[in-house]
């Protein structure tokens, strides 16, 4: 009895301590809310290595936005690799946030829409975001709908994705090779043979373990084998490994591997940066955007040219490359939308956010051109993640028509038949995990030609089947059919 009392007293004492401390914490929180009646204080989480001058720049931004829309902005940057995990914790714990960056690749957009992390913004968009609707390519807003609603504002930049073959121009010139006729995987062969014969030390066909030969299909989930043919009319989901196109591509890859064009390490190596740094390669495949050749050449320090390997396709992944969403727990959703509207339509604000303070981080050389000053290293932001790119000032050596080229590129893009369809794998999550495991086991070795597809493709297909591929495809097909019926 006595013992019990003692324990109770102890627990009571501990509770009291927690409560007192908790009360202190709450007081701290309320202060910021008190000022809210006048000016909205927006908190903006975005991706990228934290920069020293973010606070200084945001003070300027806030001064500007306070005048325009009566809101101030605090930006919190979270480093690339931490973003996903940290934002999950932030969302789950109800950390105060208003605007957050999300994309197909980091802090997954669709997944978090389904978890309820973001506010549905259909009404806000019509009421406060008219500028966005008028400015950015309609394909973005259409393509980023989940289950028929908008949950974020995609950044206006390159809309479709297009695969290109990149060539090391030094080697092209040396052997006087013509890339005009290159397009398919097979068409590379004569060029690669020349290089292999003359330059035994060069990696002819550079690739890492994530390489997948291009076939004209759109994947339901990046790098998992469920896909729909691009020119489909019956919206049938297939296992990519069972298609004739992929079988042929794998056979070709195997041929190239045996001819020594592909490095024996390809199936295990995580990046080709060694090759691009040393210039010891001849051809590889990459995703392009307008003027990418110039950027590649500038980055690597030697000329790189490219030629298309596919059409420009608008897919979910390309549309969801960079999105800004308003959080479900935002205190000022209207102000947040007004701010996003301003960010995507007002060049002054957009450039301030991107390049910092004029005279400190950059200087203007004429109306729409700028040059970075040495201080720019303290405010070096990833432009793609911060809203409408087409409002940005040009850099010193950008061509005058940079954004026109982008607009043309976007206009050329062809929408994938399943653009806007987002597979919800909740019902088949066990099978999805098993499929992921099978994929880890076979994928890279098959795709890089390291193993013989005649022998291993049937094994891999069998393994996928055992992992529950058929059930996943049935489930996905049902969802897709429903989506198609609704869309029509």
């Amino acid at each position, binding site marked *: 009895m006595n013992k019990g009392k*003692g*324990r109770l007293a*102890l627990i009571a004492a501990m509770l009291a301590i*927690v409560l007192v*401390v*908790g009360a*202190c*914490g709450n007081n*701290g*929180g309320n202060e910021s809310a008190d000022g809210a009646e006048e000016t909205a204080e927006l908190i903006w989480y975005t991706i*990228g*290595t*934290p920069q*020293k001058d973010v606070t200084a720049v945001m003070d300027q931004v806030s001064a500007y936005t306070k005048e325009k829309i009566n809101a101030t902005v605090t930006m*919190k940057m*979270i*480093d*690339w*690799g*931490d*973003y*996903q*995990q*940290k934002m999950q*914790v932030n969302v*789950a*714990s*109800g*950390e105060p946030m208003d605007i957050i960056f999300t994309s197909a*690749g*980091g802090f997954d957009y669709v997944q978090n829409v389904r978890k309820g992390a973001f506010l549905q913004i259909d009404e806000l968009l019509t009421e406060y975001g008219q500028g966005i609707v008028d400015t950015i390519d309609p394909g973005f807003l259409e393509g980023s709908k989940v289950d028929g609603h908008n949950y974020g504002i995609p950044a206006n*930049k*390159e809309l479709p994705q297009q695969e290109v073959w990149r060539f090391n121009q030094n080697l092209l010139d040396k052997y006087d090779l013509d890339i005009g006729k290159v397009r398919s995987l097979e068409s590379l062969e004569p060029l690669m043979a020349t290089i292999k014969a003359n330059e035994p030390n060069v990696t002819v066909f550079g690739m*890492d373990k*994530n390489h997948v030969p291009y076939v004209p299909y759109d994947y339901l989930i990046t790098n998992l084998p469920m896909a729909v043919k691009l020119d489909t009319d019956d919206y049938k989901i297939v296992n990519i490994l069972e298609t004739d196109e992929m079988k042929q591509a794998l056979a070709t890859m195997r041929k190239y591997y045996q001819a020594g064009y592909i490095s024996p390490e390809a199936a295990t190596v*995580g*990046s080709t*940066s*060694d*090759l691009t*740094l*040393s210039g*010891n390669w001849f051809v590889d495949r*990459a*995703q*392009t*955007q307008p003027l*990418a050749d110039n*950027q*590649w050449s500038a*980055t690597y320090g030697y000329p790189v040219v490219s030629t298309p390997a596919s059409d420009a396709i608008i897919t979910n992944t390309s549309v969801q*490359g*960079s999105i800004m969403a308003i959080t479900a727990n935002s205190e000022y959703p209207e102000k947040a939308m007004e701010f996003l509207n301003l960010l995507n339509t007002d060049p002054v604000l957009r450039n301030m956010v991107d390049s910092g303070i004029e005279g400190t981080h950059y200087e203007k050389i004429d109306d729409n051109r700028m040059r970075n000053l040495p201080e720019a290293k303290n405010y*070096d932001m*990833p*432009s*793609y993640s911060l809203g409408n790119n087409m409002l940005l000032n040009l850099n010193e050596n950008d061509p005058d028509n940079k954004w026109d080229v982008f607009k043309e590129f976007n206009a050329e893009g062809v929408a994938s038949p399943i653009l806007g369809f987002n597979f919800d794998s909740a019902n088949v999550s066990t099978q999805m995990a098993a499929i992921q495991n099978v994929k880890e086991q076979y994928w890279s070795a098959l795709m890089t030609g390291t193993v013989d597809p005649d022998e291993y493709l049937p094994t891999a297909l069998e393994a996928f089947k055992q992992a529950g591929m058929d059930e996943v495809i049935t489930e996905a097909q049902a969802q897709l059919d429903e989506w198609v019926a609704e869309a029509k």
Partner: protein
Amino acid sequence: MNKNRKSRNFMQLSPGWNAFSNATAALFSLLCVFPFLFVVLISFTDEKTLATNGYRLIPEKWSVGAYSYVFETGDMLLKSYGVTILITVVGTLLSLFMISLYSYAISRKSFKYRRFFSLFAVFTMLFNGGMIPTYIIVTQVLGLKDSLWALIWPLAMNAFYIMILRTFYMTSVPDAIVESGKIDGAGEFKIFYRLVLPLSLPGLATIGLFSTLGYWNDWFNALLYIDDPNKVPLQSMLMRIENSMSFIQQNSANSSISLEVMQSLPQDTARMAMVVLATLPIIFAYPFFQRYFVSGLTIGSVKE
């Protein structure tokens, strides 16, 4: 003669076995040290040579470029050093203080609630609230977001260390010593710091070493609680760089990310240099704690 040889054989190994054991031990320690030596070598390799030739034991071209890069761009690194050293020292002292008191209390048989408090500690080993509730407590209840205390408090108490130290007190500090203090008129605190603590130095050193390493190597708390780049500890900074590298590589298909960002990340050699710089200081922690690992202090202090 015969007798002599026998006794020698009894005490030591035959030369053959001796050589064999030494060779095995040498080989094993080489295996342990080699990866680190290799990292050191890579950090002194020229970046371009590394890209062309790959990793080599004796690089074609040596360079201190990585170190000058780290130190040039490196007020970041120095700040992180400061943070790590601060939290390691403060944290270790704090956790030694708390753990030694707590476990001493529950090691004393005359303490009425020792069962309750032992269970109380063990309970946290078996069950915990999980990441999100912990996060909410630390940031919202305790208000430690972006504070260095958020790196210190969560690691300060550790139920496992409490159990180790309690067992240490119980086995190597005989009750009779505590009694003798009482007879001489010492209070509980005096007994603790004049008699028990000096006898438990090896145990305290063990816990001290553990928690020093724990603080030095902790990166996860910083990932959760620290946003301010000036308060990021060393390991967390390395982790951020590694994570960011792999994030960018995974997303290298997205041309706009990879092009812009690849350039801003440190190269291979610079990362190795950071690893070397982050590891060196902690190596010296071992000899420091080693001198406390003396056993047999209590032999002969009590006659059973």
